[in-house]
């Protein structure tokens, strides 16, 4: 691609990113569901299962410290998934056809929403973090841990956005929205969501180690779980999992986009 091409791509990507963000201002309470649901889940799970931190061998003495990164991922994932649902609406309204008929390179049409998802994911994560810090023991992982939590969340929102975009391009209908978000919900909770691996029983004990989100959670938990101290050993499996998921869903999304062209 020529320099001109790069500049053009940048411009188009920026314009699409801005449009996705503007929508936040226009659609009243657009971010509310993606923020409120994880906060409710955080507080509810804390209230229900809070005593689990008293189990012998639990890696932290504060259950909210264990849950907070989970809620952050959930919020970031919902924010990403919402991008897919919005794309489905654009497709239904015919706006996406207009984009398709423009000379913009095809992959860029995906980059815009993905970038918007990354930006949007910061809102629920920050709200959850504030709630968690008010109620919990604070950041045990310091700046590095906090950085890893945000990185895990932002990159997970990319995974969720690509998954949502794939489904939106396939279904071309807003009705796919709940399916996208249920997928995110399942991915996040079929993991070490409530207790660490050694405490899992039954089929989850078998499934969770194979769920990449388990490792993304571990990466994020460096921020708040005292038993998971900040270290490269707790980071690289998460990064690897995220890279793998992003690659996988990006390929799916691009394949789906090519099909739409035909």
């Amino acid at each position, binding site marked *: 691609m020529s320099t001109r091409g790069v500049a053009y791509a940048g411009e188009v990507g920026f314009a699409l990113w801005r449009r996705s963000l503007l929508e936040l201002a226009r659609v009243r309470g657009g971010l509310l569901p993606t923020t409120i649901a994880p906060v*409710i*889940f955080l507080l509810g799970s804390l209230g229900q*299962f809070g005593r689990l931190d008293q189990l012998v061998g639990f890696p932290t003495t504060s259950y909210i410290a264990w849950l907070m990164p989970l809620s952050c991922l959930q919020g970031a994932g919902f924010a990403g998934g919402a991008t897919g649902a919005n794309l489905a609406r654009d497709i239904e309204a015919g706006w996406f056809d207009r984009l398709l008929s423009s000379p913009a390179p095809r992959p860029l049409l995906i980059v815009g929403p993905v970038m918007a998802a990354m930006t949007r994911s910061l809102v629920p994560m920050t709200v959850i973090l504030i709630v968690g810090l008010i109620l919990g023991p604070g950041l045990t992982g310091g700046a590095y841990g906090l950085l890893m939590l945000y990185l895990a969340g932002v990159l997970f929102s990319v995974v969720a956005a690509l998954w949502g975009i794939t489904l939106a391009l396939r279904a071309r209908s807003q009705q796919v929205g709940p399916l996208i978000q249920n997928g995110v919900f399942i991915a996040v909770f079929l993991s070490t969501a409530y207790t660490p691996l050694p405490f899992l029983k039954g089929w989850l004990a078998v499934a969770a180690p194979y769920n990449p989100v388990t490792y993304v959670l571990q990466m994020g938990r460096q921020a708040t779980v005292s038993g998971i101290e900040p270290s490269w050993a707790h980071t690289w499996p998460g990064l690897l999992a995220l890279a793998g998921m992003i690659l996988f869903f990006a390929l799916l999304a691009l394949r789906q986009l090519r099909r739409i062209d035909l």
Partner: protein
Amino acid sequence: MTDVALERDLAVQGRVILALAQRALRVQLRRAQFLLPSFLLPLLLLAVVASGTSAAQQLPGFPSTGSYVGFVVSGTIMQGTLLAGLMAGIAIAGDIEGGFFDRLLSAPVHRSSIVLGRVLGTAAIGVAQAVLFLAVAFAIGADFTGGAVGILLTILLAALSASAAAGLGAALALRTGSLSLMQNLFPFVFVLLFTAPAFFPRALLSPVLEKISVVNPLSYVVEGMRAALFDLPALGSVPGGFAAGIGSVVLTSSIAVWAMRSRAET
């Protein structure tokens, strides 16, 4: 109006309620893609909770009920019936926005019959949910020592819980008349669920939640289910569950009828 006429009227209203309940059920079943989540989501959370938090049984003070899934399945039933109630509210809001509700209102029907028809239809869904969830729990290894009587009582409590939730959904839908608002209430199902001892015994909830759960009538319903399922009065009170359940149905349905009356004035 003479007594005879009133009596005849009651029989008519009974038929009206049944016809409306039948319609509510039928339409919900035909819109299965919307009803399905109220069966699948609770099962999903049951799977996660039963497997992910079963270590809780090692906590001091956790009651012994054999398999952990048997203990938490009552919360799953509660979640299902709450979702069914929300679906009922969404369906009513859809009827209002689509204009079908005006048709009901312009018929010579008691306002309460319109609410009770929907409540009854939702109760039937609650029964179906309870049967399914108990069967799944049983298949995974729950051992309900309360026997058939306990299971029957639990199913009845589920019907009450669904009825109360439907009354609440109806009240909100009738008050707001907005479909999009009803659809956005989804997260608040979890507020009601998590402020009751849905998955943990009340004594092991966090102190704040334990206090809140006292005023949530669902607390007594879910505890009543557990007490019935395991025939263990230590887990809760079956009559208490029925009292809370019936009280909630009366309360929420009354609010719904009141909301319907006030609709005609705006």
